[in-house]
């Protein structure tokens, strides 16, 4: 067996079925071996970043480890954004990159880059394999590290000569990583304390994040049993169903008034699988000023106490801990608290201007209604992403795939590919903006190549809308370099050029028909909605602000 064959054998042994990637000189032995292994499906993207985001979405939509291949130098460097993205949003990924032969490493050889050096801070761990006999162990460790603890990307840099070397070693059955032993079971004493604090709380709030996506069942039982008000961060959307009466929406910068007010007034927060990102907390000093007890459940000890001090830290797996909490907790007596929350909800619905103009909010809501909140939603980054988070009623876990931590524009289209590959029978809805979409639009070719029935909903406002919104609010309307409409392509023709049916919607009254047309399309489709350009995402808590600084409605002049 050659190193390349060993790699593929090791992947098969890990249960890998799909690989996203792009070949090149230094990884050709692997691609040659792949030619013979028909049980491994390879999705060829048009750019390595696309392969990385596709693998990320595949992992998050399926709960499995995403696998991505790239060649050395530029190939591997093109992956870095996707690796950093996966690192921030705790996504299990194994990336295999070709490297120049060991004899050439360090000589500035053709297509050489120090990929283990470059990716050190943006991977959970990485390897440079110098001996082919280490390869099965390295692959086994990589998958173990990627999927356990706080999940993350692991990169294996594989020199070309090692891919060709003859293998004489063994495939280990187990891993031995003495420095890596994640804690799964929360400490029983801490769980007892948490339960006691919960039952004593007057104004408790449950906050769930991306680390709770695999724990939706026990968390939903816990919510049902206790009657606790629940909020979900951007990555936690779908952990609690959007139509659950206990659900208050998303907190943070573009969160609902009710979610943010509840956190502001809460005396106890039970945070599961989140890390209190600055888009959630705003000014840390003024975050949740009435908080007496934070119960912080996270599998990564370093994420507990990093931003907000936790009175009851629980290091452990979200599902394991939630299961114990669901078993141990009883109904909470918090009727006065709920009355206050219901009042905030009644007084502050999400601003939904529906004045006959074509707006993103109406488009997203229409798709939400037509799909019953059951689609797998993927987004790019920008205003459309926040509108999707606000207006698409996510019902299921692992069904809202978005770049949260890194905020990677261009995430959407390749991610929709990975999502559709992971969940072939389901409707994958991509909400993207014209700016974000153009960062990775070459992956239309990938959609077309595999006839993936992705529904691309392009919310075209002709601007870098989120930047424009900040310029509106904080830079006295100086719209510096945000105008795209003068040079945007004809997106309908563009999609058609890739063999993807497409059409354009310009009027509000066409939305419902357009939604029906998109969802009725058996294959891929792109619908371009020419949405109102002068639009802001509200409510908004300015960066570094607190709930008290919340702007709930667009300023007067912006509305005209």
């Amino acid at each position, binding site marked *: 067996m050659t190193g390349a064959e060993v790699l593929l054998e090791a992947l098969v042994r890990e249960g890998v079925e799909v690989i996203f990637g792009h070949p090149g000189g230094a990884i050709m032995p692997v691609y040659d071996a792949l030619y013979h292994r028909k049980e491994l499906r390879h999705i060829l993207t048009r750019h390595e970043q696309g392969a990385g985001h596709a693998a990320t979405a595949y992992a998050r939509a399926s709960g499995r480890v995403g696998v991505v291949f790239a060649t050395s130098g530029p190939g591997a460097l093109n992956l870095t954004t996707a690796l950093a993205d996966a690192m921030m949003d705790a996504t299990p990924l194994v990336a295999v990159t070709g490297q120049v032969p060991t004899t050439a490493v360090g000589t500035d050889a053709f297509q050489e880059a120090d990929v*283990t*050096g470059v990716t*050190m*801070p943006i991977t*959970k*761990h990485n390897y*440079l394999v110098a001996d082919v006999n280490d390869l099965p162990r390295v692959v086994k460790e990589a998958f*173990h*590290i990627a999927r356990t603890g706080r999940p993350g990307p692991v990169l294996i840099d594989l020199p070309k000569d090692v891919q060709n070397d003859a293998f004489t070693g063994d495939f280990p059955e*187990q*891993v*031995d*990583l*003495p*420095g*890596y*032993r994640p804690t799964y079971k929360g400490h029983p004493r801490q769980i007892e304390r948490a339960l006691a604090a919960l039952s004593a709380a007057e104004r408790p709030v449950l906050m769930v994040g991306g680390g709770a996506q695999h724990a939706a069942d026990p968390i939903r039982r816990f919510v049902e049993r206790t009657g606790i008000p629940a909020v979900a961060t951007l990555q936690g959307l779908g952990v609690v169903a959007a139509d659950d009466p206990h659900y208050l929406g998303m907190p943070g910068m573009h969160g609902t008034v009710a979610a943010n007010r509840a956190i502001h007034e809460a005396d106890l927060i039970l945070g599961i699988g989140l890390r209190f990102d600055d888009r959630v907390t705003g000014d840390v000093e003024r975050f949740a000023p009435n908080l007496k007890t934070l119960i912080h459940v996270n599998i*990564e*000890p*370093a994420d507990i*106490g*990093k931003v907000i001090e936790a009175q009851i830290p629980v290091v452990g797996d979200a599902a394991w801990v939630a299961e114990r909490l669901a078993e141990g907790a009883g109904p909470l007596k918090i009727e006065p608290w709920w009355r206050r929350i219901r009042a905030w909800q009644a007084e502050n619905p999400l601003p939904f201007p529906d004045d006959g103009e074509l707006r993103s909010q109406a488009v997203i809501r229409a798709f939400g209604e037509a799909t019953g909140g059951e689609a797998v939603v993927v987004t790019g980054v920008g205003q459309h992403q926040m509108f999707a988070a606000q207006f698409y009623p996510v019902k299921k876990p692992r069904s809202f795939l978005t770049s949260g931590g890194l905020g990677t524009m261009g995430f959407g289209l390749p991610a929709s590919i990975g999502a559709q590959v992971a969940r072939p029978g389901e409707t994958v809805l991509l909400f993207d903006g014209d700016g974000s979409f153009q960062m990775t639009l070459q992956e239309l070719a990938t959609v077309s190549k595999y006839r993936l029935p992705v529904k691309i909903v392009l919310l075209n406002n002709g601007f870098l809308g989120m930047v424009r919104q900040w310029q509106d609010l904080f830079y006295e309307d100086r719209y510096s370099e945000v105008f795209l409409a003068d040079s945007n392509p004809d997106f309908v023709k563009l999609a058609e050029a890739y063999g993807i049916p497409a059409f354009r919607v310009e009027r509000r009254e066409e939305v419902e028909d357009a939604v029906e047309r998109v969802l009725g399309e058996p294959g891929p489709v792109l619908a371009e909605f020419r949405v109102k350009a002068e639009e802001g995402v509200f409510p908004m808590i300015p960066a570094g602000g607190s709930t008290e600084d919340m702007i709930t409605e667009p300023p007067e002049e912006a509305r005209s």
Partner: protein
Amino acid sequence: MKQRHVISVLVEDHPRVLTRITSMFARRGFNIDSLAVGRTHLPGVSRISFVVEGDDRTLEQVEKQLNRLIEVLKVVDHEGPRLERELALVKVRVEGIEERIELKEIAEAFRAQIVDVARHALTFEVTGHPAKIDRFLEELSNYGVLETMRTGAVAMDRGERVIKLRARREAV
């Protein structure tokens, strides 16, 4: 409140493990005052000592972020009674016999050894707590210090306390 801490880290002796640690320190904005590395009696295990300054919260993050690294086996903040030593080599210019005598006296007071003698230069070797080395260098600053090299502090708990590694155990 900021305090000086000496931290010992046992690591797997792999290529780039030191880079992983120092890069993490730099990225997280933790300042390293000194750093020393060496092998241990355990095969494949190296030991790194850091001197860092920070408040409790920063130190908690330093320890947790170190523990996050796969190749880090054990992190210990030496908070109790500890031995702390550093070694320094110092080369000083000497002009004339009087200076030579004065320097020898200073060396004796600090139990520094003269390890190299030349016509116009003396080289001292001194070991001890980093604070002692600071004072020694301060004394010498009245003379012509030509070159200094300090190893960074190494530390160990006093008494019978030892840093134990968990027994190697097979995980899934």
